[in-house]
């Protein structure tokens, strides 16, 4: 119905993706609340433990594959299993604007 120009495109996450949190997304531990939070434009997200583990490694340098390998070692779980979950999680975070392609 609308022939809008789309100057931007959706980030599709794959194993090879390298992602980062843009400067206006702030992952922070709130001592007063005893938990991790993500602050964004008019949003406060409360990431669960796996999301925090993933986001702490999301530095614009490591690829999704590298992050998966690290998590696989740390949590002693098969990389193949983790990979699907991590890609899914990153895709969701990308769609919310919490991570972008590096």
């Amino acid at each position: 119905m609308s022939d809008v120009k789309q100057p931007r495109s959706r980030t599709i996450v794959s194993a090879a993706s390298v992602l980062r949190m843009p400067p206006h997304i702030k992952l922070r531990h709130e001592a007063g609340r005893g938990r991790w939070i993500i602050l964004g434009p008019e949003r406060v997200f409360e990431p669960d433990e796996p999301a925090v583990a993933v986001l702490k490694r999301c530095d614009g340098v490591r690829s999704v594959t590298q992050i998966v390998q690290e998590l696989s070692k740390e949590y002693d779980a098969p990389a193949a299993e983790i990979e699907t979950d991590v890609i899914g999680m990153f895709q969701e975070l990308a769609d919310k604007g919490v991570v972008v392609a590096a």
Partner: protein
Amino acid sequence: MNDLTPVQTQDADEVLQSCGRAPVGLLAELTHKCPLQCPYCSNPVELERANTELTTAEWQSVMRQAADLGVLQIHLSGGEPTARRDLEDIVKVAAEVGLYTNLITAGVLLTKERLAKLKDLGLDHVQLSIQDVDDANAERISAYKGGLQKKRDVGRWVKELDMPLTVNAPLHRANIENLPNIIDFAVELGAGRIEVAHVQYYAWALKNRAALMPSRAQVIKTAHIVEEAKERLKGIMTFDFVVPDYYAKTPKPCMGGWGRGIMNVTPSGRVLPCHAAESLPGLEFDNVREKTLRDIWINGQSFQKYRGFEWMKEPCQTCPKREFDYGGCRCQAFAMTGDATNTDPACSLSPVHSDFVKIAEEASKQEAPAFVYRRMAPVKAKAPAEA
């Protein structure tokens, strides 16, 4: 309830346990001055005058106290917050104490230099309001010439400065048919987020309800347009869709629950549980000039009054949905029934729900009356001149 009923008292720990949290957000209405005169302005009809506004140091103290209390995000609003020449000094302190700073602006007073300065001082996000994407109609709604072109410039500067942008588009009868173009405009401007917000009928909007109220068919159409656009723009722009509760079956969880997550400070320092709370009788509003934010949040009479579930009557008291909607909006309940403890008339379980819907349906069928523009009341003749 009679005059001898003791006011329920709780000690601070109990309140913190019962409300369970510190406020997440604080809406700082830095000033009620605004060059625009939108007829749906959320400010009270009785606007506060510039000579009653908090000083720079007082606002800076509010920022420090907010961070200390556990507030995460500060929404710098108005009126038009950029009408305060000390906005930079306030942003600087807010950023220093770790608050996530959000500027809610109409944009027309900004320059690129000022925006760059605000960014350098730590401003995190800009929310830019638009009235319509048709220049002439935007002028008619805001009673301000050339506003839309200025907003295009501001949107471009925000992106050039690599800052995140939200476009806020209040929807009503006079612009609702333009929604697809409004969404396109936000995409082209580079917004990462859009608020498609049906006007909420309080204060100036309530005064202008007959001029602003869309029809049910128009509202349903906007829901379809937003659904389609959300899917098409996934990963490009996120949507916040605020529905008009006159056509809803369930009430909105107003303010996320009274005294539960948000506090509002007016230009003169009055602390409100919601920006329309002054329309309710029997509330005492504390001022940051006299008490700390922490004390007001925990013990303030106006915050205690409708916090939690104790105050509720039926059908709310035993309703399982009270955990989600908190009984809806107190101001709307009072405006419609004369008793703020009644359920929100937007709820289909309210005995006056059908009357409430009828108001909207009938208003939307009438020819729209002229807008009553948002203006300061004229100063009374006896008021002495400023020295």
